């Protein structure tokens, strides 16, 4: 029989040197957490519940067999956040996990639908303390340590676009995009004010962040709180942060929301938005709500893209260079 290998590229897209760099990076990360007293854990990649975040799409699977008399829908996790919070509520203390996560519809120079996430939680930390922890970890794995910069979401918009992202209306943001040469600003039909902020951030600000340094952006609009605490004030601000290196988003962290009622409200809001935008309606994680309700300790948590960090360390320009087999050839 003839082998059917036509048009097959079986070779890895990562060099052997890259594969060794990845192993070394993972070892250094584990070493950092060992030294700082954070416990490595594992949680399921498949769950009966999914993230409700309208910006993140889960892959859906079906389990058939013992335990479930009818085919049972399961979702591949998009981050290990929910079960890790259940561990925190059960008294685990500081924990971290390195795992593969899965996001549908994301593929590009900086995206692969399956990627490696490092997620960790520090009880007793707020988002500022966690940013320092993130910086210490990153500087312990980089070939050369970098200067650290902390900028509020307000500051970056002010600095680069002279606009107040909290006060500006959707029309003003559209106007600002036009003024700053985004040709499609007039034509684009974006669903929310946050989508306009995302347009400005990705097209006119991001590339300037993290140049020869680690840039943390913190205190996001309350509408982008996701699972972060909202600090009351005028305007109220989400205690959330992102880390940028050389214009690339590397990590997203929260001073975690610990109110079950508010969490459920946010899930419901997400689902309403999903419905309005014609997206899949997914079951919200009731186990998480129960765990938060029983008492999630005050903590901060962060998710960091390992493949992108590896891109930074090795100066790779495409995520495929860091993956042995990207989805396109998996």
């Amino acid at each position, binding site marked *: 029989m003839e082998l059917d290998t036509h048009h097959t590229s079986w070779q890895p897209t990562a060099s052997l040197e890259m594969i060794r760099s990845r192993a070394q990076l993972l070892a250094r990360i584990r070493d950092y957490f060992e030294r700082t007293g954070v416990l490595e854990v594992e949680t399921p990649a498949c769950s009966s519940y999914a993230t409700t975040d309208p910006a993140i799409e889960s892959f859906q699977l079906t389990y058939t067999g013992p335990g479930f008399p009818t085919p049972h829908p399961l979702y591949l996790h998009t981050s290990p956040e929910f079960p890790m919070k259940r561990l925190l509520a059960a008294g685990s203390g500081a924990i971290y996990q390195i795992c593969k996560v899965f996001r549908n519809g994301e593929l590009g120079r900086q*995206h692969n639908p399956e990627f490696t996430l490092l997620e960790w939680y520090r009880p007793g930390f707020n988002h500022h303390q966690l940013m320092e922890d993130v910086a210490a970890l990153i500087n312990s794995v980089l070939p050369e340590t970098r200067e650290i910069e902390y900028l509020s979401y307000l500051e970056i918009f002010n600095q680069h676009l002279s606009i107040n992202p909290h006060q500006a209306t959707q029309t003003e943001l559209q106007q600002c995009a036009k003024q700053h040469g985004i040709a*499609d600003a007039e034509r684009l039909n974006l669903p929310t004010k946050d989508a306009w*902020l995302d347009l400005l951030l990705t097209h006119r600000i991001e590339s300037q962040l993290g140049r020869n340094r680690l840039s943390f952006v913190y205190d996001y609009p309350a509408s982008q709180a996701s699972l972060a605490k909202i600090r009351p004030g005028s305007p109220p601000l989400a205690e959330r942060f992102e880390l940028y290196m050389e214009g690339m988003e590397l990590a997203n962290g929260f001073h975690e929301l610990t109110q079950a009622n508010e969490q459920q409200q946010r899930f419901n809001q997400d689902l309403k938005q999903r419905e309005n935008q014609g997206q899949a309606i997914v079951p919200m994680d009731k186990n998480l709500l129960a765990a938060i309700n029983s008492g999630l300790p005050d903590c901060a948590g962060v998710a960091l893209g390992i493949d992108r960090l590896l891109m930074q360390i090795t100066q790779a320009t495409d995520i495929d260079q860091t993956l042995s087999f990207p989805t396109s050839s998996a």
Partner: protein
Amino acid sequence: MANYSTSEFKGGLKFMLDGDPCSIIENEFVKPGKGQAFNRVKIRNLKNGRVIERTFKSGESVEAADVVESNYQYLYNDGEFWHFMDPDTYEQVSADATAVGESTKWLKEQDICTVTLWDGTPIIVEVPNFVILTVTDTDPGLKGDTSGGGGKPATLETGAVVRVPLFIQIGEALKVDTRTGEYVSRAGK
């Protein structure tokens, strides 16, 4: 015509933008971890050749452009239009000066060109990277001077003027790089 969604975007895809056919040069998927996804694309307008940057919301769709590229043989110029023939079907098309553009300098009758047609009308005529053309006029220069330093202008049968080494004479066939407009070598007869 059919529509393309942003998921189908890739280099070379042809679609309609603001009434003009255009081609994707580069497509980048841009998405904040917890935010709106965009496709940032570099596009060439096929009618005027201009390169622009545009942004689409991921999931949007665009109208496909009926653009095909194929090989045609150049026949003649009637003063207004350049006429080409499909060597397989003998079907003829005529291109205007905008479509022919700079290629007119290198177009020799019977040469095969790549013609881009939009809705059946030529919008781009591309000549091969290398063409062979005969020198119709150049200074006799100094026979035996092979230093090559400086060179001299030579007019070719299509009217194009290129710089050639001093030893090149009228009537010689030359290989010319049409992308740079530079002399490459003598073309052995």
